[in-house]
């Protein structure tokens, strides 16, 4: 028995040690980033220092006033795209899930099977046709092609559908009907509130996914004032960065990353529970 306890203590030690190393790896790079974003170019030239310096505000002002990389405008664009994506994606996915779960109709099985087959289909394979379509529709270099297609998000639909299946009693819908509630009202006022937890989780994931998306914006956006954050980061990488103020570069990356980290710290419990739900597929 004592030997068994000892082995557990040893294993526990190894587990904690590994976890600490991995956590260090996860945080280390962001720590350097944040420290470096507070340094001036001259301070960075001297080599790495472990403690933050006092140049953060100057760097931030430089980033905000830079016309070549309109970072703040980029953040505004990214927020517009990501929030609208999150809103319409979750609303219409919930609506689709509701339609397929509550009603009986001829094509129900076909429609469901179809969505399940395209569940993990990469968007890149249709990029050529998508690009041409966007040009023909006159949406090239606008934010619309980044937002509208998110109405059809199979993975979000599947999450909503599973959630409805375990949380919505059909008798509730029936009762509402008897009380004279219209079908649209049933969805908007009864089912939608029930789905709030699922919608919140998926809204976060859709927001982040859209915020981080690079492939599609890189294809359909051209002018600088339409650029989203990932596009600006890519432009930065393509520029002759060695002549730049490195403090400013670190600040630009910070500005792109840190808002999401801050939001994550507030919502982390929620987000991790959402990830775990995706894992309960047995």
């Amino acid at each position, binding site marked *: 028995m004592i030997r068994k306890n000892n082995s557990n203590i040893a*294993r526990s030690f190894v*587990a*904690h040690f590994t*976890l600490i190393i*991995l*956590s260090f790896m*996860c*945080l280390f790079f962001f720590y*350097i980033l944040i420290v*470096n974003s507070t340094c001036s170019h001259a301070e960075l030239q001297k*080599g*790495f220092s472990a403690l933050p310096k006092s140049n953060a505000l100057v760097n931030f002002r430089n980033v905000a006033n830079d016309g070549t990389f309109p970072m703040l405008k980029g953040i505004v664009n990214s927020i517009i795209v990501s929030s609208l994506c999150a809103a319409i994606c979750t609303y*219409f996915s919930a*609506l*689709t899930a509701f*339609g*397929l779960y*509550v*009603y*009986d109709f001829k094509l*129900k099985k076909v*429609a469901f099977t179809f*969505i*399940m087959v*395209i*569940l*993990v*289909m990469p*968007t*890149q*394979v*249709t*990029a*050529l*046709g*998508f*690009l041409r379509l966007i040009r023909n529709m006159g949406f090239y270099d606008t934010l619309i092609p980044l937002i509208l*297609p998110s*109405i*059809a998000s199979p993975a979000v639909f599947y999450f909503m559908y599973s959630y409805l299946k375990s949380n919505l009693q059909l008798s509730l819908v029936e009762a509402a009907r008897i009380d004279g509630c219209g*079908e649209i009202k049933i969805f908007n006022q009864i089912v939608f509130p029930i789905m709030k937890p699922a919608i919140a989780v998926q809204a976060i994931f859709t927001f982040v996914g859209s915020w*981080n998306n*690079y*492939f599609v914006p890189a*294809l359909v956006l051209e002018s600088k004032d339409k650029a989203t954050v*990932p596009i600006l980061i890519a432009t*930065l*990488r393509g520029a002759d960065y060695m002549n730049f103020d490195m403090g400013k570069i670190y600040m630009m*990356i910070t500005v*792109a*990353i840190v808002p999401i*980290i801050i939001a994550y*710290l507030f919502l*982390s419990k929620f987000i991790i529970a959402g*990830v*775990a739900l*995706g*894992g309960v*597929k*047995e």
Partner: protein
Amino acid sequence: MKKTKSISRAKWGYICILPFFVTYFIFSFLPLVDTIRYSFYEYYRSGIRTIGPNFVGFDNYISVMGPDFFTYLKNTFILWIIGFVPQIVIALLLASWFVDARLKIRGEQFFKVVIYLPNLIMASAFAMLFFTLFSTSGPVNSILANLGLVDGPIDFMGTPTGTRLLVALMNFLMWFGNTTIMLMAAIMGISQDVFEAASIDGCTPRQTFFHITLPLIRPILTYTLITSLIGGLQMFDVPQILTNGQGNPNRTSYTLIMWLNNLLRAPDYGRAGALSVYLFVVSGILCIMVYRMVNRDDEKKIRRRFNRN
């Protein structure tokens, strides 16, 4: 009476799913048809002259399937596998540790929050960060020099192995937390009785892991493998930004989607189309595998529910 009612409700079913299918039709299905159509045409720009569209049959398919294709396919696969193997191994270890009550892991919530964090980071910004950190005059080299570990700066991105390892490290950091949490949920889904029985029968932790946990979570492991493979096939942001779209050194970190991106920009629609169709076929096969697995699970659940009743 009842029948008319159900017909009138069927209408609502169609109305609810209409936006999804209309959007999918316009923004995914039509583009797919258009992509396939252009894969049979010669249509590219050479200087300021546009050539085509002329119908050329399967020429694009033959020309795309050259040595470049296999090189980029190999690169994509290598970049994926050297990130995926440590990811799944570490995730399995962490997940089994987290659920093992005997280990008394402290700060479980803290560790989960930290290891999931990189998953939310913008891949392009993360790659740009790694590019600056690991450049010859960057902080990592400066730290290594201060510690006296290296004589001169290491050119991490100057060798194929270095670049590939950096890409793999980023992919690993971005995904191992996500996989850990998913596997943990799967392990916690296993009935506690099984573990208790094993423990009474004198199973060591190692035996429990290999003979009970692993076989029972195999479906989700396969699911993780295939979805990760699909993700790997789409690998773009990280190598694109890290190498500025060049796949340097000597195109050893150039992926299939980076190539597609380049063909779309050239533009060389014919060859981009053919490449897309190849990718479509491969992802289609993977999609059907995912579909089968998700569906089989549903059937199993239904069967279990029947048994319970």
